[in-house]
Every structure is written in C-alpha cells, then in structure tokens.
C-alpha cells in the first residue's frame, strides 16, 4: 500500500458499509439478483414499493393483424404530426422569403390574413396528433396491467420518535425555563417583523390631501371642447343630440373624471324638464351638461336614447333620465349624474360656470363629507 492510498479520504468510503447499513441490499446479494429474469426483477422492485401486479393483458400478439393495424395507425398519426409540424415550420420561416409576406395589411385578404390561422391549425394539429398517437400507442399496443398499491396511514413509530426528537431538542434549548430569553425573543420578533414590513409604507399615500376625488379640471370660464379640441356654440347641435365635451386644459380629453355630456334637449323634453333642486340654472337654454362618468362604477355612460330621455351605462345598465336631473331610474346606480353649470362666454362659446359642485364618479366612504 502506497502512502497516497493510506492518506485519509484517498480510498473512497462508499464500498464499505457502515454498521447501520440495511435494506434490500442485505436481503438480496448481487448473485441472487443475477439469477432473476427482468420480469421477476420488475415485480420484485414493485413489491418493495407496495405494488402488486395482479393481472397483465399482454396486448396484441406480435405479427397479428390487430397489431399490424394498430402499428399502422400509430405510425400514420406520428407521420401526419411530423408532416403538419414541418408544414407549420415552412410557413413560419418561409413567409416573406419564398412565400408571400406574413405581415398583415388592412387591404390584403390573402396570405397574410391566413398566416396566423395556418400556423395555429398546423401547429395545433401536429401537437394533437402527437398526443393522439401516444394515447393510441398506450391503449392498443402496450400490455394492460392491473396493479394494486397499498396505502399507508401515518406510522405510529414515526410519530413517537419524531416527537421525541423535536420535544427533546426544544427541552434541551431550555427556552421554557429561560424566560428572559423568551421575552426578549418575542420583543425582538415584533420589532424585526415591523422593520421588515416597514418599506411597504412607501405605498401608502394620503387620498385626502386637496380633495382629488371631489375636483376636476372644470372651473369658471373653462371652455367646453370637443375631442378634437374645437369649441362649441349654441346651435351647433341638433335638438335631441349628445356631444362628449372636455375641459379646455392640456390633456383635458384624456382625463379620467372630466368627460362631460353636452345634451341639447328637444322642445318636448324642455317642457317636462325638472332639474334637481338648486340646480335649475345649471343649464343654458335647452342645453344641459352632465358628467359622463357613471356614479355606479365609473364607466362612461354612453348610450343616449333620446325618445325616452334615458342615458344607459353599458357596463351595468344603470339608466339615468336627463329630464329629471339625470336621476337614476333603473339599475344599480344610486346617485344622479352630477350636472355641470354652463353658460356662454363673450365670444359665444360654451364655458363652465364652475367645477362640478359634487364629486363625479363612483361613490366612496367619505364622499358626502367633502
């Protein structure tokens, strides 16, 4: 024996079993295992996994017509899968190279319009056929066995010994006796826990500074603009029509709470118009302006049915009557749409007389207090 081999760690340790070694390797020597056939080894291993193979239906006889047919089926399925996959690949790679361009254009109804469907159809077909082939193979060509595996409840031995280890370790730590450590641990845990959660405070912001929910960009003298930025004069609209207007501020037409509906009432609507108390002067002539943001869930109420004077919100079907101060008459909304007080400025364009006098949009906890 050379010095190198006698040095610690140089001989390898795995081949000499430790004193606690055990298990199936003790039950079966390599010589015994060598005498067993492959099937016997399979079943022996299964026995060690609590599995017993009760019955094996060996599948179709080799060379039989049933087998030949199944083999043909499986091979055909896999073959078609390969074909579809290659075709999908060729279409994907070849489009715009030796095939027409794949990129969709609005005027084209040809290749580019069927590029995605073709990839999906061929790719999907290929994958489905792979799956079908595997299932057919398993069902028609593999032996069918019926196996039983035992199911064990928890072992009492494991519970008792694990419990002993756990409780023993805890007992040895002496935490139950050393009250000072326990208390300091609780104190420390609370502090460190709070400290680790502390950064989440960065998410918290005060929603009540400056009443952001109760105000919009509307204000005295702010013009009513169409989406394209043009101002509106009385007489631009037909009676019975509705136009969505925005405040004349930068980005006003993208603000989430400023969108307003300018409605010109028909003469018969003017007859029956009953604005909310204190808001009789908010309209201008036969024009009224209501917030477009639904008081239920904040969707833009968009569908105006002028015959019934109703505005319908397409999200949850709240309905508001424009001749009754946009009072909700059906559906889940509880509050009328806020009315924007409007007038006409020196140049004859519509302007707001002030901001909305109440918060627009959905209800919230302290809405009435602001």
């Amino acid at each position, binding site marked *: 024996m050379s010095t190198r081999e006698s040095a610690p760690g140089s001989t390898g340790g795995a081949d000499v079993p430790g004193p606690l070694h055990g298990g199936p390797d003790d039950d079966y020597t390599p010589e015994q295992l060598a005498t067993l056939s492959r099937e016997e080894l399979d079943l022996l291993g299964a026995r060690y996994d609590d599995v017993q193979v009760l019955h094996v239906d060996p599948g179709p006889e080799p060379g039989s017509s049933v087998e030949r047919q199944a083999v043909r089926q499986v091979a055909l399925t896999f073959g078609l899968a390969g074909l579809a996959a290659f075709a999908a690949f060729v279409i994907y790679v070849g489009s715009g190279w030796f095939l027409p361009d794949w990129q969709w254009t609005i005027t084209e109804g040809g290749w580019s319009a069927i590029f995605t469907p073709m990839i999906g159809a061929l790719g999907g077909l290929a994958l489905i056929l792979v799956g079908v082939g595997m299932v057919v*193979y398993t069902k028609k060509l593999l032996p069918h066995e019926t196996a039983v595996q035992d199911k064990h409840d928890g072992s009492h031995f494991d519970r008792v010994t694990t419990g002993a280890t756990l409780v023993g370790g805890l007992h040895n730590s002496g935490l139950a006796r050393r009250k000072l450590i326990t208390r300091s641990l609780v104190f420390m845990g609370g502090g460190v826990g709070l400290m680790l959660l502390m950064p989440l405070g960065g998410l918290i912001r005060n929603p009540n500074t400056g009443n952001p929910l109760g105000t919009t960009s509307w204000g005295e003298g702010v013009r009513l603009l169409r989406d394209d930025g043009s101002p509106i004069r009385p007489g631009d609209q037909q009676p019975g029509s509705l136009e969505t207007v925005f405040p004349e501020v930068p980005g006003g037409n993208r603000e989430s709470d400023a969108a307003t509906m300018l409605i010109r009432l028909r003469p018969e609507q003017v007859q029956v118009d009953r604005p909310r108390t204190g808001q009789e002067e908010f309209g201008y002539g036969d024009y009224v302006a209501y917030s477009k943001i639904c008081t239920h869930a904040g969707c833009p109420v968009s569908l105006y049915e002028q015959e019934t004077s109703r505005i319908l919100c397409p999200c949850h079907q709240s309905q508001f009557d424009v001749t009754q101060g946009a009072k909700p008459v059906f559906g889940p909304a509880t509050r009328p749409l806020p009315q924007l007080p409007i007038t006409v400025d020196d140049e004859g364009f519509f302007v707001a007389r002030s901001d909305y006098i109440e918060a627009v949009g959905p209800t919230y906890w302290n809405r009435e207090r602001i």
Partner: protein
Amino acid sequence: MARTATAPGVPTTPLGKAALEVDDRLIVAGPLRRTLNKVFPDHWSFLLGEIALYSFVVLLLSGTYLTFFFDASMREVVYEGTYAPLRGAEMSAAYESTLYISFDVRGGLFMRQLHHWAALLFVASIVVHLTRIFFTGAFRRPRETNWLIGVALLVLSFAMGFTGYSMPDDLLSGTGLRIVSAIILAIPVVGTWVHWAVFNGDYVGEFIVGRMYIVHVLIVPAIILALIALHLLILVKQKHTQFPGPGRTEHNVVGNRLFPAFAGKAGGLFFIVFGVCAALGGLVQINPVWLWGPYNPAQVSAASQPDWYVMFLDGSTRLFPAWDINLPGNYTIPALFWPTLVLPGILFTLLALYPMIERKLTRDTASHHLLQRPRDVPVRTSLGMMAVTFYVVLMISGGNDVISEKFDISLNAMTWVGRIGLVILPPIVYVLTYRICLGLQKHDREVLEHGLETGVIRRLPHGEFIEVHQPLGPVDEHGHGELAYGGAPVPKRMNQVGGARRAIRGFFKPIEEPAQVELEQRRDEHGLAAAESRELTTSGRPSDGGRPQEPRD
C-alpha cells in the same frame, strides 16, 4: 475496490454503465423506481386536474415569450406601426407593444391568442376539476389541505386572468380596470386609502400597468407554482382516491403503474391540451385589441364583457339593487361594495370551508379514500347543484345585455329575471336534484333486488306474461338478489354484464375472424352463448363497475 467485468449485476452495455455512473453520484435508482411503480387509478375524471396543470405549462411557455416584447409602461406615445387605422393615435406604450406583438412580431398574434386561450382553459379546467372533487366527496379527510390549496389556486388564477387582460391597456381592459378602481373605492373606511396605495394616487395614474405586470409575471406565478408543487406533493403522499369497484378498498389503489401506461396517456394528454390551445390560438380570434382601440376614459364599447370567469361578478353587480347605506356622520357604504366584494368573499369562504362544514354537520371524521357517487350523497349533491345554479344565473346576468339584444328582450326584464331567478331557482334545483338522487338510488336497489330487464317476455302456463329478469348474483328463496349496494355503478343493461359479445374489430372490413372472437368471448365468459354454462354475475372488468361489493369500511 476495483470492479471486474465478471462480477454479477455489473452493467455491460454503454447505457447501463452510464446509468451506474449517474446513480453512483446522485443515488436516484430507489426514488426513481418508487416513482415509476406508483399506481394511478384509471378514470377520465381524474384527468381534469391534469388539464389545468398542462394549460399552466402552456401559459408559462407562451407568457415568457410575450414578455420579450411587451412594454409594461403607461408612457404616452403616438402610434406609428403597421396597423394603419390607428396610426397617429395617442396610446400607452403598453398598448403600442401589444399592437407590436400582434402585427409586427412573426407569429406574435398566434402567441398572444394561444396565451389567452390557455388562460381560459386553465380557469375552466380548475373549475371543472373542483366540481368533480366536490361531487365525489374527494375533499373529505385527509384531503382538506389540498382542497384549501385548490381554492387558493382558483382565486390566484382569477388574479392572473384579471391582471393579464388588463395589461394591454385597450379600451375594454381599461373599462374593466375603471370598474375595479370603483370597487376598491367602495371598500368602507379604507377604500380611498387602498385605492391610493394600489394606483399610487387617483385613477388612473401612471403606475398601475407596471404594477400589474410584476404581479402577473412574477409574484402570482411564483405563488401558483409553489402551490401546485405542494398540491402534487400532498397528492403523491396521500395517494389518489378511487371509485369503489372490485378489489378496491380504503387501503389500496388499483390502476396502472406510472410507467409506461400512465406516462403514455398523461404525456398524450399534455400534447392534446397544448395542441387544442395552439389550434384555438391560430384559428379563433380572441381579444382583438386593435379593434377596441386605446383606452380612453370617455369611451366604452357596448356589450363589454369580461372573460367568462369574472362574468358572474359582473352579473351580481348588474343585479344588485341601488342600495347605498348612508351612515350617521355622512359616511356611505356604496351599493357596489356588496355584489363585488362581500358576495365573492362569502362565496369563496363557504367554498374553502365546505369540507370542515360538512365534517361538522355529518360528524363524519373518518379518513376516506373511496369516492362517493353523487346520487349516494343527495344533500351534498343538491347543495352543489344549488351553488352551480346560483353561479350560472349570475354568469348569464353578466351577459344579459347581449341576450336582450340578440333575442329582442327588454334589458330591464332580463335584469328582473336575474334578480328573481337568483332567489327562487337555487331552492327549486335543490329539491329537483334531491329527488333525482333518490330516484337513481332506488333504481340501483331495484336492479340489485330484482335483476336486469332482459327484454325477454315469457308466457307462463296459466297465460300470464312476465318479463324475465337476470339477477346480478345469488338469489334467496323469493328470487330476490342478495347483493348489497357498494357504491359502485350497478349495470343496468344486459350488454354491460356481457349479454352480447363485443363487436368485431375493423373499420372498413373486419380484421378478425368472427368465429375466433366468438371462441375468445366464450373463453372469457362474455356473451349470451357463454352464459348458458354460467351465472351472469360479473364480467370481472373494473370498467363495467364489476360486482358491487360490501363496503369495507
């Protein structure tokens, strides 16, 4: 110690040698053999959970691809891309990159649609899997933990779905986000504070898409992955449930070993799920965001529905009456709070706690590994059907504007149909289901007692006609069957007990000899010809339900 080539059991093939090298280092032979030998029960309904798992894999693959191109930013840009109708429109970078994926990435549209379809399938398969677990009682002790994990996965899949379809920032998803903003504001006391924390201020701000993105691609998928791993670990540890049948007890699992039979079928199913998602992704258009246009708070499209799994909440929101609660001090609990937060809160809590509730009410605290047929537990089945009815009414109400338009029904009438239906339909369905369960039970008992109807009419010597019944087992002196009902399907037709031989195989022409089949059937004791020499009791095949057994436990 040197090994010699002659030592027994030492591999000689290259593959065997390589395997030995691997096992010498990793010691995997034992665990691998245990895995390969694991027995899986064979029933189609056990594949529903697998469909969910596989569609999640598809989601991970396609979703990762989409992240290469998606820009989760609300920065305002002007569109200059391929899609001509929107050129020059102002939009967010998120929407622009979604258009980029759809029109300028080769196969990008396919990938987007594949992802969306897989998401719908993911939630759908979870829901169907859940109903299977519920109606067969698979949630009973010891599987309450896995039930809870499953419910958590369902809720998380909702979160994934919502953040997923909200991120493109198109008109439809923006409308959905606006409603969620209103829902958050509707929380009593802290609503505005929560809204400011989630949106970093007033709606809509510039943060929400970026935040939803990280929730959608990292936080929730990580939790879902961990929970799926836990779900499967517990499943493997507790082993599968199985339907009662021949040789099946509370202490075993009867079926196929993982390798190769189960692996073949499961692998096949994975490819089929993947393929169906891919075919749908290519062939069936979904969420064409370029048609909706960029989000604009002043615009909305009619018939705007969320994805199907959120539709029941949309429905509850439409049906709930306009009941704000005004509290002293001018505080308000908005009506929106009840149908969107309280209702799903109650529904999911009841769902999660159902195993514990049932355990408490039935005082059944035993471990169960054999499944129940829905008819044998009429109260649970009826409760489940009641819940399903409640859900379906809400879901239909979520699309009541489409129904009223297509069928020319008044929208307000549809709302009232939903409101009234929600209250009266579930109890009606409860009673109906209960009666159907009892009827099915009774018929099972009847067949066990009197035997199968054979269709053979016999004339007795005194002129009376009777139908001959085939008993399923031994009979007592009155001719009544002595078999007890064991929770397994009872055969109801002669063919199910081998009354006819099987069909000759072959599609265009027979590929086997009819005489051979007849002989084989006789040998296996199938068919009426074979029945002459034996009692028609059971075919011995589990797929027939086999001979009903005494319950073992």
